[in-house]
């Protein structure tokens, strides 16, 4: 009986020693795994940052104008060859996906980090060119007609309350001024809202040239007008990573108007 107890005691003691030896090893393995995972995530972030920088270098090397949407600083910047031409404060960003009869179709492609090209205004900015036929040289045509005084940019290019910049591959940026319809009456606002809903519904139903993804960017009304009037044709776009919509906006002091 005594021998049996002694054997049991020896077994327990061996087990305890074994556990004491194994436990620290097992415990140290879990943080190591976590560390490896953290490292991998860090590498992935670094990879993404590097890819983004590479794309920006490519854009800066090209001859096209491009927009850089930075959610981290809430800014939309018009650039050419690495130079900042105009910077707009972004007041909000939303992503929109089409849906038909409540069935959504989510585009799996990422919006960020991709170079979107050939962006054009919709509705387009129209320039009515004045064509002048010169008179025959040396012939007296009477009093020369006084050339008309051209209108101001505000008169020449009326800005719609909402407009799009449509890019190839199905991305559309909807520019919407904050409190777009605040100056109009209730019925006019309601009508505008329903009209926008109707246009969205029709756009979602159109299978051929539907916007696969929409980015809705809210700007100050003056910025939205300025962007419409001066956006060059065939503009490119890159959406940077980092930050969320509604992050601290760029300081107004640094924003040129």
């Amino acid at each position, binding site marked *: 009986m005594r021998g049996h107890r002694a054997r049991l005691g020896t077994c327990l003691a061996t087990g305890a020693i074994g556990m004491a030896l194994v436990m620290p090893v097992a415990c140290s393995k879990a943080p190591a795994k976590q560390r490896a995972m953290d490292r991998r995530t860090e590498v992935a972030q670094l990879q993404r940052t590097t890819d983004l920088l590479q794309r920006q270098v490519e854009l800066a090397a090209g001859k096209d104008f491009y927009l850089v949407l930075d959610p981290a600083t809430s800014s939309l910047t018009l650039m050419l060859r*690495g130079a900042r031409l105009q910077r707009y404060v972004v007041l909000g960003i939303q992503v929109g996906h089409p849906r038909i009869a409540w069935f959504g179709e989510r585009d799996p492609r990422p919006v960020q980090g991709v170079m979107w090209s050939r962006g054009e205004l919709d509705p387009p900015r129209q320039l009515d060119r004045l064509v002048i*036929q010169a008179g025959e040289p040396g012939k007296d045509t009477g009093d020369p007609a006084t050339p008309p005084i051209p209108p101001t940019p505000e008169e020449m290019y009326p800005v719609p309350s909402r407009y799009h910049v449509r890019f190839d591959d199905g991305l559309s940026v909807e520019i919407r001024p904050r409190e777009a319809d605040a100056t109009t009456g209730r019925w006019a606002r309601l009508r505008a809202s329903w009209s926008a809903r109707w246009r969205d519904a029709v756009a979602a139903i159109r299978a051929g040239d539907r916007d696969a993804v929409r980015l809705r960017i809210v700007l100050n009304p003056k910025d939205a007008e300025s962007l419409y009037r001066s956006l060059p044709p065939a503009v490119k776009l890159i959406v940077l990573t980092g930050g969320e919509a509604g992050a601290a906006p760029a300081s107004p002091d640094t924003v040129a108007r």
Partner: protein
Amino acid sequence: MEPSPSSPPSSGKAPVAAIPEPGAPPAPRPARPSAATPRRLGPIPLDRRTAGLAAACVVLMASVVFGGTGYRYEAFVDIPAAPSDRVPSDDRGLQQLTARLRTREREFAARLKAAAPRGVYIVIDQTQNRLYLKRDDETLLQAICSAGSGMVLKESGGKKREWVFDSPRGRFEIRSMSRNPVWRKPDWAFVEESEPIPRNPAERLDYGSLGEYAMYFGDGFMIHGTLYERLLGRAVSHGCIRVGREDLRKVWANARLGTQIYIY
């Protein structure tokens, strides 16, 4: 009195039309079915109430479909970077990859910085007729200017040439600078005035119309002054950038040969 078997039943049913006898007045037309006996579509009676209900159902369904058709917007959220399968799993491989990526990151950041203009540069918004003098992110001057009108001039005689008065878009640099510049009028300036194009080059020279300074940036385009300051802010030029006297002085004071000009 018992109704005879040939008399019409009194249940409201239409009488059976009899063959009229010759000379007899025409028999009255059979009465239409009254509202009390509606037409039926199978088991469903086709009365006003059913039609109203059907219309309401259609409207409801259409609004449900319309309400769920369009674009569904949600807040923009930054998607975190997901580790790629190509990332090595061992510690040493990870360290090497990290070091390589850091080097590339530094390299790209340096290239991006090198692409940006150094020192003072000029930005021109030709649609809104604005000129900005900038240094890095700082705007030193915002001036009203006049860019190309976009007008088309067609020559009547001669070579039937055509000119479009647009300001160019893109990046340029100041190639030459001139104080009290003299304008050597191109052909279109004479065609526009319906004047013969002179053979003597001296007859092309025009003094004073370009203001105090001119900064030439290629293809005959310049930033210069104007005699018509009241038209600043409107697109009236033949492609050059016209600036008011005071603003032109500031631009001149800051500009150098090689100063970058960005026109959009």
